[in-house]
């Protein structure tokens, strides 16, 4: 068990800086998800914590101890890789026992731990098989088993679910969550999938272009996104963004001249509103011309544009609605569900 502290972590390859000072405190037993689009530096950050990449500057501490210069083996961590990275020439049992054998743990103890992990992960029947004789999901379990038996103080997951098919991914996601709760081991999970991030993490660190955009609980990120990027990244379908101009009276004016209650500021702002927060209303402030609708059964997605502009809008209504394409509808949203961001910096305006 250990807490992790990232202090102004910087990584550059030659002249190219890929991480620009990442800070974050991860508490003991917490499940933190690092999420962001491809190339945002999330895997690099994880590999720096694991010790597979050198730290250019800044500090990584695990359990209060600076580990910058420690070998991966000495950091008391276990890692699950995207491609599982099982040892192809060893049986499932040997794969799990490998790290324990190297650490010189007694045979009987190795056997006990491997069997216990195999039981938790329901792979007891495959212990004698080679990895190539296993399915993707089973390999994934073996990779997890290899991490569990070591009884490390930190688990690191590098997109472990992205090679699985959609159904299995949902199932393994739940299992990873349950397992982490049961073992109570501090975990860091890297993914580009925001749904995975929202469901797994106690807290999410949203990375974009090597910067931390926001670090908070899934609900904080959903309700109070601090930047346009986080607002657009978290939530599905993504938040609608409407360009607007602030007026002196604390309202904002949309491009089609409609006025919406806003924040006290000046200049151009970006107004954000989530598709599921828009409700049909006769006097609603958002006039939308419907271009297309998608019936999903549980809800209906309406794709359209804000009337008089070419700003695309998506509305998500619960249940089924028979709305003809080409219709014009008005929607409103509660004032506290409107988000305002500075149009140039992308930062939230309180």
């Amino acid at each position, binding site marked *: 068990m250990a807490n992790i502290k990232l202090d102004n972590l910087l990584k550059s390859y030659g002249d190219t800086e890929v991480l620009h000072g990442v800070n974050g405190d991860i508490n003991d037993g917490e499940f933190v998800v690092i999420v962001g689009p491809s190339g945002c530096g999330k895997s690099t950050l994880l590999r720096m914590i*694991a010790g597979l990449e050198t730290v250019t500057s800044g500090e990584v501490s695990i359990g209060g101890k600076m580990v910058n210069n420690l070998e991966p083996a000495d950091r008391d961590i276990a*890692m699950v890789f995207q491609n599982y*990275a099982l040892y*192809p*020439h060893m049986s499932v049992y040997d794969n799990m026992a490998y*790290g324990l054998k*190297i650490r010189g743990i007694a045979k009987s103890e190795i056997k006990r731990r491997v069997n216990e992990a195999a039981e938790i992960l329901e792979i007891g029947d495959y212990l004698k098989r*080679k990895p*190539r004789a296993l399915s993707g999901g089973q390999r994934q379990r073996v990779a997890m088993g*290899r991490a569990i038996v070591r009884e490390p103080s930190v688990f690191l997951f590098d997109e472990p679910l992205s090679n699985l098919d959609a159904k299995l991914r949902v199932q393994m996601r739940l299992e990873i969550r349950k397992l982490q709760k049961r073992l109570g081991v501090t975990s860091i999970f890297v993914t580009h999938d925001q749904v995975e991030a929202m469901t797994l993490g106690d807290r999410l660190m949203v990375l974009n272009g090597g910067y931390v955009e926001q670090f908070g609980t899934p609900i904080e990120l959903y309700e109070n996104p601090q930047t346009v990027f986080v607002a657009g990244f978290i939530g599905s379908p993504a938040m609608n963004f409407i360009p607007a101009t602030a007026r002196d009276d604390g309202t904002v004016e949309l491009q089609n001249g409609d006025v919406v209650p806003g924040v006290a500021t000046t200049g151009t702002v970006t107004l954000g509103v989530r598709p599921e927060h828009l409700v049909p209303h006769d006097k609603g402030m958002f006039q939308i011309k419907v271009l297309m609708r998608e019936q999903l059964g549980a809800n209906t997605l309406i794709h359209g544009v804000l009337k008089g502009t070419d700003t695309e809008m998506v509305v998500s209504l619960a249940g089924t609605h028979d709305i003809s394409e080409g219709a014009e509808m008005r929607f409103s949203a509660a004032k506290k569900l409107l988000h305002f961001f500075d149009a140039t910096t992308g930062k939230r305006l309180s």
Partner: protein
Amino acid sequence: MLKRVHFPTSYLPYLLVAPQIIITLVFFIWPASQAMYQSLLIEDAFGLSTEFVWFENFQVLFEDPKYLESFIRTMWFSGAVALLSMGMAIILAGFADRVIRGAMVYRTLLIWPYAVAPVLAGALWVFMFNPTLGIISYFLEGFGIDWNHYLNKSQAMGLVIMAAAWKQVAYNFLFYLAAMQSIPKSVIEAAAIDGAGPLKRFWTIVFPLISPTTFFLIVINAVYAFFDTFGIIHAVTQGGPAGSTNILVYKVYNDGFVGLDLGGSAAQSVILMILVIAMTVVQFRFVERKVEY
């Protein structure tokens, strides 16, 4: 339903394989069958009289203690060459696998020896180890070692083994490096996180995973040591001193073209041919299929 595309009969396919078949016929099947026929004859040195003797040449060979000696010497020689060159290659490949900067230069330099003709390779080593002129024998003298491979049997053997192995290192290196680079990096990283140091990782992960390459190279190196080392032996020791480096392939030449025992020499080359065919069969039947992991 027959799910096969049918092409109209044409001569094109035969034309396309013809060069390969002609080369095989002219440069392998024809001389090989000539050798087989020759091995059943006893001919005098001037080719004036020829007698068909069935397997007498082979009978004589198998009863000749010198032939048996040469056979054992060849085994020992090829074993040493394979072990030395593969051992060197695997170490170098292990280093090269970790090199990131300047990798191309390093690899290119390591591949060069392969482009050196065997006779030249032999000549290089002869000069370096020449008892009177050689730079290395000069240094060895400083350590109190009296180097003279013209007189000392084991020094002669050591020198041809070194020369032959050196030349093959480049080839083995290429294969080992390719094999090592095909191991997913994450597997090595997983082992590092599991606590295995570089040496431990090599023996428990890398070495087992490149074992198919090792099996392949054992056969290739054995064949090389059996046949392609003629030039090196010829340049360095000419089979001497006192026949101590007279391996089978050199003996074929020596008995045939120096000793002018054409029938006996042909019989020896037939035996060598059977050996290499056997090794190739082993390679294809067992090794290629046993990519076991």
